[in-house]
């Protein structure tokens, strides 16, 4: 059973492969795309998005939801923006269609250039839709207002940027029209060599399988990208030695604005089998399969069905090996709604016409628990037999005597906060393909953690790790969820079993129901201060709903107690974080690992405590914040680099101004009230008390390029650029000489996962060390001192020391197997110490700090919130690339806004992007960023991590501002209009 059927593997896709009697007749449909006449033969109701991507290979048009909820597929049809996923091929007949690939006409359009210049594209998955929607706007209004820009782009969701740079890029696009039309020499050298993927997997991965006969159908597609569209565009390349601290255009930016970037679903081989996943419709069920062979035979074009019985290795994966518990395909029982139980593989056209409603699986629904309190109740069913009381694990930190301290406190406050499941909602659903290259399984997919993917795939499929190659594609947002494997073992299994490439792109629904979420938290805390307003004690307890499988639950349980004090000196402290299994969605990593939830608890209590003390809320925080020489709640003495006081100090003028503004407004308004809130964050960079090394390899090629194996996966945050900037200055060569190789596990050493705000710090440090080592190697070769200045001039290495100049012709040197004439490889692992039974130790080598002010207006009658401004001060140690740092801050704030005000994932109810709401371009107010640079002695060039910090203060600052405006604290998050209004009404009733 479940082997590829020999007679089926030869089956040709197309009409003959489809089930007669069901599918619709194909028709020839002709239209114009980007100026070229095209004709396709497809069923007339085929979505235009599918026609563009699958028939014409115009994969710049993205599919994020297939329902008009995200706008990623926006194209122009006869000049008007429409969602290509909602338009039939028949409706496109005779029209003129413009896709992102058609925007550049020999050179970047002004808008594309403006997007690059402003850093308006991060991961880039929503960029094509935004560019198209904005192009339509600019055609009619060349100088749009902010409101017009928001109205025009309101239908395109972006999860990375926070939209502010997009708004600026569109409003300022006109500037680039004139700049780009100026004739003359390019101010900077051509930069076509900077695409990090130009020499990565595409150059070296063997071509998967044989070409498909279907290729012939696709001829004439507008596939090719003209080269060097950015010839006359200023990439702001820094001169040698000045890369750190400058903001060059991101090195991987160009394909993000041309549609050329290849994400997980953009490079499926033409002859790949399509894969669909059969998933549990129940929170908890027993299941059994019927006659799978008969079902396969009854469905022409289906090649095989695969279940847990077909998994050759250990059917249990997980990001933390001792807790690994998740089957790739469930066996007998499914523990959550959306869990994969079987795979169906077949020819693409047959799969498009496959109705899984007759798939032979019998479900027996079983009792389920969705709330931690139910899961902990006596007699509750055990979701995993080896985990009593459904307790996955507990994290614990204790210092001093918190009970005695609170008993002796002049003032104490207590409270409880509940938060909800939050969905990552990256605009790119998981996608990828797999194929066999000899005896090596190659998985080409979006990811945040290629080496972890490799190890889990190898384990599940019983392959040696060196027989699994993970080739990361561009990743259209991750935010923590793409750390766990999703489809990698599934498509790997199909490729192994059939010997054919296997491709799968999750639907939006599938992505939402099957992948991880932010943990819902039920938290309680008490905080006490002495009469002078000094914090003297805190106790915190949080239950975190970790769902059906472990994923990153242990990390959340451990990180929360370490951070729940906030960046404040808390001499007496106890915090416990518990990860509790339920039959809910799996909770895993999401930007902050539980710290954003815990910070809501602590920072809202701080406002109440300041009020009791009669202290200004900012002053109160300033008085208590950690300083150089402070000890943290884990007893770690922070010798230097503690920047929270500087962050709060930088906010002070904004705070004073905002309070006055709110007071003035409120004096004249009774139905709407303004409020101002502040909250802080601190966050340890890297794994908690566990090794997490990064390795960087860099070398000089015989042709005079610096080749950087950049293994820190760039999911939009900018590591391709930042790691190269660090390496460039350590090496002493200009950034423009760098060529990047991707995080392909076959060619690039492990730089660890893109997680825990660790890449700039940990991989950056490895890149700094590797850059210095490579420099040292060359200087030694030339027999010159450290003072020498090096340069690359074509294939010559130029070395100057004092009056002497030497030219070394690199082409005369022996190149090694990697093509290097000089090379270096260095690793870095942050020095940490384990936590003892009381959670005392040195869990992190580096912390980052920040604080934010939220200003907003509450409509008291409707409970709606209008954000007015967020001011964010973040201590990044050293801003390696200030523009990218700002982008991280704005994007994190947008996610914090969503968490505070609208995001609530409910299994079975909000499994799409119209019921699950994330902020649109109209929901993120102006953001003022203040970068604070208090160098860290450990970080590269003093840099600290930033990626997660930025989200942490936003939600508590907003909740504190709502409380300031209305007098009520909403204790169930998100603070929806309904909940805010209920709290206001309750307060009125209590009077």
């Amino acid at each position: 059973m479940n082997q590829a059927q020999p007679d089926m593997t030869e089956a040709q896709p197309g009409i003959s492969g489809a089930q007669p009697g069901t599918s619709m007749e194909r028709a020839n449909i002709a239209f114009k795309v980007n100026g070229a006449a095209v004709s396709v033969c497809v069923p007339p109701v085929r979505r235009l998005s599918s026609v563009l991507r699958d028939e014409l290979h115009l994969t710049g048009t993205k599919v994020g939801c297939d329902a008009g909820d995200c706008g990623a597929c926006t194209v122009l049809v006869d000049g008007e923006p429409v969602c290509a996923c909602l338009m039939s091929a028949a409706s496109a007949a005779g029209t003129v269609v413009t896709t992102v690939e058609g925007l550049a006409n020999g050179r970047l359009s002004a808008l594309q250039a403006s997007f690059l210049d402003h850093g308006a594209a991060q991961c880039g998955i929503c960029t094509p839709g935004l560019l198209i929607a904005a192009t339509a706007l600019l055609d009619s209004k060349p100088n749009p207002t902010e409101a017009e820009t928001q109205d025009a782009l309101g239908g395109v969701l972006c999860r990375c940027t926070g939209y502010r740079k997009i708004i600026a890029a569109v409003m300022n696009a006109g500037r680039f029209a004139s700049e780009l039309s100026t004739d003359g020499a390019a101010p900077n050298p051509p930069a076509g060599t900077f695409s990090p993927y130009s020499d990565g997997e595409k150059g070296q991965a063997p071509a998967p399988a044989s070409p498909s006969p279907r290729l012939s159908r696709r001829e004439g597609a507008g596939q090719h990208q003209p080269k060097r569209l950015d010839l006359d565009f200023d990439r702001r390349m820094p001169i040698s030695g000045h890369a750190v601290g400058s903001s060059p255009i991101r090195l991987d930016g160009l394909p993000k604005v041309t549609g050329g970037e290849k994400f997980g679903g953009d490079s499926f081989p033409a002859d790949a089998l399509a894969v669909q996943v059969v998933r549990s419709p129940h929170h908890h069920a027993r299941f059994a399969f019927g006659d799978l062979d008969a079902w396969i035979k009854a469905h022409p074009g289906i090649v095989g069905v695969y279940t847990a019985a077909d998994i050759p290795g250990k059917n249990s994966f997980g990001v933390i090996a001792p807790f690994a518990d998740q089957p790739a395909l469930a066996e007998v029982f499914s523990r959550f709604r959306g869990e994969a139980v079987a795979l169906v593989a077949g020819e693409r056209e047959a799969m498009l016409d496959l109705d899984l409603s007759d798939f032979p699986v019998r479900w027996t629904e079983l009792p389920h628990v969705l709330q931690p309190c139910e899961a902990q109740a006596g007699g509750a069913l055990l979701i995993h037999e080896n985990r009593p009381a459904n307790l996955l694990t507990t994290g614990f930190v204790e210092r001093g005597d918190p009970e005695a301290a609170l008993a002796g406190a002049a003032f104490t406050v207590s409270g409880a906060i509940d938060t909800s499941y939050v969905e990552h909602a990256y605009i790119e659903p998981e996608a990828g393909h797999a194929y066999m290259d000899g005896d090596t399984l190659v998985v080409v997919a979006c990811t945040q953690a290629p080496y972890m993917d490799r190890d889990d795939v190898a384990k599940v499929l019983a392959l040696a790790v060196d027989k699994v190659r993970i080739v990361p594609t561009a990743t259209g947002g991750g935010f923590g969820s793409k750390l766990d494997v999703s489809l990698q073992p599934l498509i790997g299994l199909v490729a192994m079993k059939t010997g054919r490439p296997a491709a799968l792109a999750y639907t939006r629904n599938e992505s939402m129901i099957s992948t991880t979420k932010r943990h819902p938290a039920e938290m309680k805390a008490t905080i006490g201060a002495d009469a002078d307003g000094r914090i003297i004690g805190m106790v915190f307890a949080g239950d975190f709903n970790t769902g059906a499988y472990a994923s990153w639950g242990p990390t959340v349980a451990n990180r929360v107690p370490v951070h729940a004090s906030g960046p404040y000196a808390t001499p007496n402290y106890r915090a416990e974080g518990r990860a509790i299994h339920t039959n809910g969605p799996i909770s895993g990593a999401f930007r902050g690992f539980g710290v954003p939830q815990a910070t809501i608890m602590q920072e809202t209590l701080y406002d109440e405590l300041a009020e009791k003390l009669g202290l200004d809320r900012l002053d109160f925080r300033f008085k208590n914040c950690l300083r150089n020489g402070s000890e943290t709640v884990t007893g770690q003495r922070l010798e230097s680099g503690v920047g929270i006081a500087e962050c709060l100090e930088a906010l002070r003028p904004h705070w004073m101004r905002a309070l006055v503004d709110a007071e003035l407004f409120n004096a004249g308004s009774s139905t709407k009230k303004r409020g101002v809130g502040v909250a802080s964050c601190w966050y340890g960079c890297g794994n908690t008390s566990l090794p997490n090394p990064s390795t960087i390899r860099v070398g000089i090629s015989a042709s005079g390029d610096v080749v950087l194996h950049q293994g820190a996966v760039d999911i939009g945050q900018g590591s391709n650029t930042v790691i190269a900037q660090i390496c460039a200055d350590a090496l002493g060569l200009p950034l423009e000489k760098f060529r990047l190789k991707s995080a392909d596990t076959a060619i690039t050493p492990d730089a660890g996962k893109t997680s825990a705000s660790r890449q700039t710090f940990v991989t950056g440090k490895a890149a700094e060390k590797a850059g210095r080592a490579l420099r040292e190697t060359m200087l030694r070769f030339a027999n010159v001192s450290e003072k020498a200045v090096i340069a690359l001039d074509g294939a010559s290495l130029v070395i100057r020391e004092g009056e002497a100049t030497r030219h070394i012709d690199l082409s005369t040197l022996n190149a090694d197997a990697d093509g290097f004439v000089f090379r270096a490889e260095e690793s870095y692992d942050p020095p940490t110490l384990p936590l003892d039974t009381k959670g005392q130790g040195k869990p992190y080598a580096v912390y980052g700090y920040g604080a934010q002010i939220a200003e907003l207006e509450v409509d008291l009658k409707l409970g709606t919130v209008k954000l007015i401004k967020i001011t964010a001060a973040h201590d990044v140690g050293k801003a390696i690339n200030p523009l990218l740092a700002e982008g991280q801050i704005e994007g994190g704030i947008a996610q914090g806004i969503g968490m505070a005000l609208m995001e609530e994932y409910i299994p079975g109810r909000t499994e799409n992007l119209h019921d699950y709401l994330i902020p649109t371009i109209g929901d993120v107010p102006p953001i003022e960023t203040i970068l604070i640079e208090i160098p860290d002695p450990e970080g590269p060039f003093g840099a600290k991590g930033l990626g997660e910090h930025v989200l942490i203060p936003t939600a508590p600052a907003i909740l504190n501002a709502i409380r300031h405006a209305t007098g009520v604290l909403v204790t169930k998050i998100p603070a929806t209009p309904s909940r805010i209004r209920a709290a206001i009404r309750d307060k009125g009733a209590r009077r």
Partner: protein
Amino acid sequence: MIRYAKPTTVDEALALLGEASWRILAGGTDFYPAQGAKPFRENVLDINGLAALRGIAETEDHWVIGARTTWTDLVRHPLPAAFDALKQAAREVGSVQIQNVASIAGNLCNASPAADGVPALLILDAEVELRSTAMVRHLPLQKFILGNRCTELQPGEMVTAIRVPKNAATGASAFVKLGARRYLVISIAMAAARLTVEGGNVGNAAVAVGSCSVIAKRLLGVEAALRGLPVDHALATAIRSAPMDELSPIGDVRGSAEYRLDAAREIVVRAVLDAAGHMPTATVAAA
């Protein structure tokens, strides 16, 4: 083999509708989301070839909106101030991308309790024109939508137009949508109001609320309370104490039932005051 047809005349379309069961494809903005990733198993009648059904015309007694008219078409078409609420609602249907293709009739046929177009059409006393090979009939909108995803459309019939009686296209109107975010949002509640003013007092008042009952409702008690009142803030006072028995909201992820009732009354006040010209235009309360 399932069938697909794209007729170019209404008669041809009606003949096809008479001979088989079809799912109608117009703008596609509800058709495709409902389809999801499932394969097609129904005959599809693509009415996008029916040029006659797109556009807005004026007869002696009616404004006639062709069934395929898009929300963008409507926004761009000059119409009396009574249509302002409908135009404001049009700008809140999904996104610009949706408004460019989604048809007005499709919004009615989809029969969602949260259909953005319905309250603004209700206050215009809109009628739905249904045609089959056998007959043409006109139903008041209230009688066309029967429930959640349920209409009076009979086998063999299709909606060909929405008609607004000219005697209802008088006065000024306004629309307020309440949602949890600025764009692309399904409303928690929405209100449309149209007032005519005679000698400084309210002549006729038409008020409708959506998302607070299975079918959007005209609020007859509110309308009665408004008639004859001076056009000032007395209107708000009257609405705050008027009966709204028509509403029976559910509690869901977007808001509790209690909240919806409370908020509905507030946005009715705002829509009425806006229509009365007392307040600047503010179509989305969440903004």
